[in-house]
């Protein structure tokens, strides 16, 4: 289940101090968490590209575990669903930058989230830029599913991963700050945004020096609504929530995988730029929370606006 990275203590990259001559007292990499802080060396600012072997690889799995071949297969399989079942409709796609990193932030819904594939597929089709979707670490521990998820662009929601994707690789990264609280909400709470974590996504965007692009999604809530959940069973199975969905009531066990054909509408809102220098060790808590609240409010208002003009759940 997609989740925000802020459920872990933010790990800040520790700046490496440099030392002058070897004889002098050597400054240490000061960190209590480091395995072994020993004196830091004078480092060249930019690593020069290495002399590379000829490319001998047979596969195309990238450093993040994503395979464009697998992605292509997934696109082919998923496209009919995207076009004819959810009939996804976008507005404001021009707000997504065509180059450079950006953190895409969206509201999250459906017991088995239907919004992540729609957003990833849509942006990849329209902009031809890969999107990496951050999701719960736990997925990595699942055999088959974890591997498949990784091959089609899923990355464990870890602040370091997000920073590296956004800052070093300048990628588009999708995150759902509500996490499983968003997908686990009951039908009667639909389109009411939960807390946006602790604002970790804002901090990562600030640190990486990239904008946040908010996306409001209408339709996911009705594609697999939860009518009842069992806290006891969830605890027993050690999962975030144990839902009974309307889909299950209607289709029986098939309802585990069958979505209702709710009409998807997605609105990309203007990017939010933070006027702060990147790569700081930390950012003002209150500023981070303010920005997170502001972005949450932007999405919430956009959702209300879109719902006001929606005539039908199924036809938009």
């Amino acid at each position, binding site marked *: 289940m997609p989740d925000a990275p802020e459920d*872990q203590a933010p*790990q800040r*990259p*520790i700046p*490496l101090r440099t*030392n002058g001559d*070897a*004889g*002098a*007292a*050597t400054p*240490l*990499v000061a*960190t209590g*968490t*480091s*395995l*072994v*802080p*020993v*004196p*830091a*060396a*004078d*480092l*060249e*600012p*930019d*690593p*020069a590209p*290495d*002399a*590379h*072997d*000829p*490319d*001998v*690889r*047979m*596969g195309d*799995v990238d*450093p*993040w*575990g994503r395979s464009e071949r697998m992605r292509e297969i997934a696109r082919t399989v998923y496209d009919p669903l995207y076009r004819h079942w959810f009939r996804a409709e976008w507005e404001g796609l021009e707000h997504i930058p065509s180059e450079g990193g950006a953190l895409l932030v969206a509201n999250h819904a459906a017991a088995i989230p239907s919004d992540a594939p729609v957003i990833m597929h849509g942006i990849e089709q329209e902009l031809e830029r890969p999107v990496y979707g951050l999701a719960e*670490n*736990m997925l*990595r*521990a*699942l*055999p*088959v*599913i*974890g*591997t498949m998820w990784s091959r089609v662009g899923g*990355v*464990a929601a*870890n602040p*370091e*991963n997000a920073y*590296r994707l956004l800052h070093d690789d300048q990628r588009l990264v999708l995150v759902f700050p509500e996490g499983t609280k968003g997908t686990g909400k009951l039908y009667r709470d639909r389109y009411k945004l939960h807390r946006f974590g602790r604002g970790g996504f804002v901090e990562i965007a600030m640190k990486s020096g990239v904008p946040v692009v908010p996306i409001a999604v209408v339709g996911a809530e009705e594609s697999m609504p939860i009518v009842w959940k069992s806290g006891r069973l969830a605890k027993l199975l050690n999962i975030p929530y144990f839902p009974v969905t309307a889909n299950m009531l209607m289709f029986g066990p098939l309802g585990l995988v069958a979505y209702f054909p709710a009409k998807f509408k997605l609105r990309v809102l203007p990017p939010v730029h933070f006027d702060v220098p990147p790569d700081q060790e930390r950012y003002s808590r209150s500023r981070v929370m303010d920005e997170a609240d502001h972005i949450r409010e932007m999405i919430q208002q956009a959702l209300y606006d879109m719902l006001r003009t929606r005539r039908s759940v199924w036809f938009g």
Partner: protein
Amino acid sequence: MRVLVTGLGTFWGSRIAQELEARDDVEVVVGVDTHEPRMPLERTEFVRADSSYSILQRIVHATQVDTILHTHLIVDSTTISGRAMHEINVIGTMNLLAAAGSAGSPVRKIVVKSSTLVYGANFEDPYFFREDGTRTRGARTSIERSLLASEGFVRDFAEDNPHVLVTLLRFSNVLGDHMDTPFVRALRMPVIPEILGFDPRLQFVHEDDVVDALTYGATHDVPGVYNVAGDGVVTWSEVCRMVGKRRVPLPPVLTNFAAEPLRLMRVDLPHEMLALLRYGRGVDNSRFKRAGFRYGHTTAGAVDAFCRSMRLERAVGDSLPEYRYQQDVESFFRHSPAVVRD
């Protein structure tokens, strides 16, 4: 430069000694180990020590070495008992550093060969560990615990002795013609084990890059911790395809239990390797590059080089000649006035 090499009898100790012998700026190479070197060495002096290096202080003072290359950290838990490993890794490192830090010690530089095993392998891990990153779970295997303990001594030593340059290199899985590691053994088997449903991202480093990295650390002033791994990552399935062998899946649950009968058949899959076959591990290798080191091989290149050497081996057999160290013969050639030296 006067250099002391620990673990001279091991593959790495001998390789490094050979490398250092060839350099003009290295005056003296002294090697210690419990057993003789198995590779021909020309001017390296071999001293036999017990496994925990208790006589090291005397050697250091007597030879006035200024550089210590600590290559003797055990990183393969399959070939040695836990007790012996503890003795070598923890007590050995402790004695070594005590000798290097004793009053009037001539030592000014220490290079330690450690392993990325210290990061562990877990689903909560970042995809690329940086040198200042932490484990996400505590160490559960004795090999990881002993390496962490040794690194702890190295850290304390660096803090207490700011006049000594300490370089700690963490190597990822090494591939090469002459290696004997759990990964190499797995790849040499007729079929290769995997864990069903997992296809981890892995990194490898070529054995020549390991020797180069250690030499670089000894001959340059690069104090600090550095990850050493070839660029890029490969998945286990791709490694197997490059080697050209089929995979046999182990069950994803009770994996360790299922590996037990294999262990009886001398197919050793230690805990730390099973964790790698499940979650993989990536480390950020850019810091050592920023310190000026250049790799000869990428991760995929190291796998490819390994495949080629394996094909050659299949055709002509193991071409490495057996070498036997004989104390009296060696000392005759090195010290007898009868031998004409230029």
